[in-house]
């Protein structure tokens, strides 16, 4: 047992040891849902995700079931969201499509965060590594995102796995860049220096001081990335080089519907609206998550005085 620190308090004083109320921290979820917009966004996303998971049970038709007699039926009683040019039920295709679209995006964002953030931290903290890693990211970022994705897809061929790989390769350098930028700022922060002066080691500096403080801009970027990936996946499908045509995705529904835009508006408006809502919800949720990570947001609403009454003034 090492020697315990003896309290070095002056004997004469014992300050306010009594009458300290218990301060309870608001739970993270309460902070998250205090904002109604965040709640709505999460609600819509949760609904979509559930629908995607439960697709075989809740979809009224199989995604490839063709009812040739009911081609291009407008939304109505039989087909709630209408049918496409082959008589396939749009609602069912949207529900199944959510699996591809959300699954691909989640995989891309997850992988990009998992690989990009550590790369960025290393790059920002170690100067030598920075040169190598940043030149590599420069290489990838020389192409505009969709063009880069296109080029990689053209090289790999279509397929869901390849879409994920291509979009991941496009996203990773961007995530790494942001993590690096934050790290560069934070490693010079006084509290990092103070932690070093109190003998904190490398792991502690990076994982307790730098990463948590870098997280909020990263979360914002990752939600934007998620949204961007939904669009990129839709774009690749739209161009016909994304997921193969027999895998329904929102992008494919949209792209197939564009030929009939004039007389069957629902074929483009519905997937378009779904993409729009998903992107909007993600952005709202991203804002909410960022607030949860920030202690300044806790206990802000309607609980001004937590100190005992006699201390409230002054």
């Amino acid at each position, binding site marked *: *047992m*090492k*020697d*315990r*620190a003896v*309290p*070095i*308090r*002056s004997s004469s*004083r*014992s*300050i*306010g*040891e009594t009458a*300290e*109320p218990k*301060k309870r*921290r608001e739970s993270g979820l309460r902070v998250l849902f205090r904002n109604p917009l965040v709640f709505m966004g999460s609600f819509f996303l949760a609904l979509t995700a559930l629908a995607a998971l439960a697709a075989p049970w809740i979809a009224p038709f199989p995604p490839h079931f063709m009812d040739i007699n009911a081609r291009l039926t407008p939304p109505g009683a039989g087909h709630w969201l209408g049918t496409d040019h082959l008589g396939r039920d749009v609602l069912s295709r949207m529900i199944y499509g959510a699996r591809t679209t959300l699954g691909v995006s989640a995989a891309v964002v997850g992988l990009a965060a998992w690989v990009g953030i550590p790369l960025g931290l290393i790059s920002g903290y170690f100067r030598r590594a920075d040169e190598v890693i940043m030149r590599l990211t420069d290489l990838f970022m020389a192409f505009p995102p969709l063009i880069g994705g296109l080029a990689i897809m053209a090289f790999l061929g279509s397929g869901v796995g390849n879409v994920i790989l291509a979009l991941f390769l496009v996203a990773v350098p961007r995530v790494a860049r942001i993590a690096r930028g934050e790290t560069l700022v934070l490693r010079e*922060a*006084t*509290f990092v*220096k*103070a*932690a*070093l*002066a*109190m*003998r*904190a*080691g490398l792991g*502690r500096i990076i994982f*307790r*001081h730098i990463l*948590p*403080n870098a997280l909020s801009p990263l979360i914002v970027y990752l939600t934007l990335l998620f949204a961007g990936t939904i669009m990129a996946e839709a774009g690749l499908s739209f161009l016909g080089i994304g997921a193969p045509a027999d895998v329904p995705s929102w992008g494919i529904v949209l792209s197939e519907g564009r030929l009939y835009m004039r007389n069957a508006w629902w074929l483009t408006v519905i997937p378009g609206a779904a993409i729009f809502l998903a992107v909007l919800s993600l952005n709202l949720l991203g804002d909410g998550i960022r607030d949860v*990570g*920030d*202690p*300044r947001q*806790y206990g802000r609403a309607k609980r001004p005085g*937590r*100190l005992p009454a006699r*201390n409230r003034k002054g």
Partner: protein
Amino acid sequence: MALLSVRNLRTYFHLHMGTVKAVDGISFDLEAGKTLGIVGESGSGKTVTCLSLLKLIPMPPAEIVGGQAYLEGRDLLSLSEKELRGIRGRKMAMIFQEPMTALNPLYTVGEQIAETIRHHQAVTRAEAFEMAVEMLAAVSIPLPRLRAKSYPHQLSGGMKQRVMIALAMSCRPKILIADEPSTALDVTIQAQILRLIHELKSRTGTSVILVTHNMGVITATADEVMVLYLGKMVEKGEVYALFNQPRHPYTQGLLDCILKPSGRRNLPKILPGFIPHPINRPSGCPFHPRCPKRKTLCAVEEPPVVRDGRQETVCWLYV
């Protein structure tokens, strides 16, 4: 035997424009339980001296070119990063100038102190937290148990500086380096913080290195004082002796700059000229271009250290 003795410390910054000799041959001794004040204008090397002792300066561009700093017989400057970690916090701790940014905004102050304690001592989480609360009480923070659960943004500047002091003292360091601990605070809080450091020092026997550019702060708290100019020591001695009879023209000039409440027309005398650019240091005595008493020799050769009792003056006037 001094607790810490620094010999000929030299820290240079290698920049594109040239080399800045931020600290150029500084030596001093710090006795156990004493306070050494370091004063000087901005850019005189006060902070770099302190950071060099803990090797907390960014290297590169900085480089500790030479010198030794013996703490209990071991040369700090030659220790590896791993060995240094045994010194940091435990033997020597540091308080920084800006309390606003010296605490991690994402954790409560209690967590931060408790974490540091657990990092140094084998105690449980709950015990460490209790010790953190005691530390907060020791630095006279009211309602310490409640405050331990506060985040840094909920505290005022003075409170944050108290927390920093609690953090630095939580591992009972032998030496506390306080780099302008009161500069960012208003005057009444300054006085409280300085009194606190003084009290803790006398209670725990910690030695203090106090960096400041405020002469009043030095007289109130320090035992010995060292005056720096452009990375070099100008004068050093026991506080009262030195301030009553400053021998070096720079120290005299510094003391003349202090406003005295003795009448409106009595504006302070100001040292003529500016601090030279650190890359183009003057030859000889670095102070000679501004010195009212310079001799021809001053521009040519660096002055030697002249001892008079315990007072050391680096000036040709007394050779």
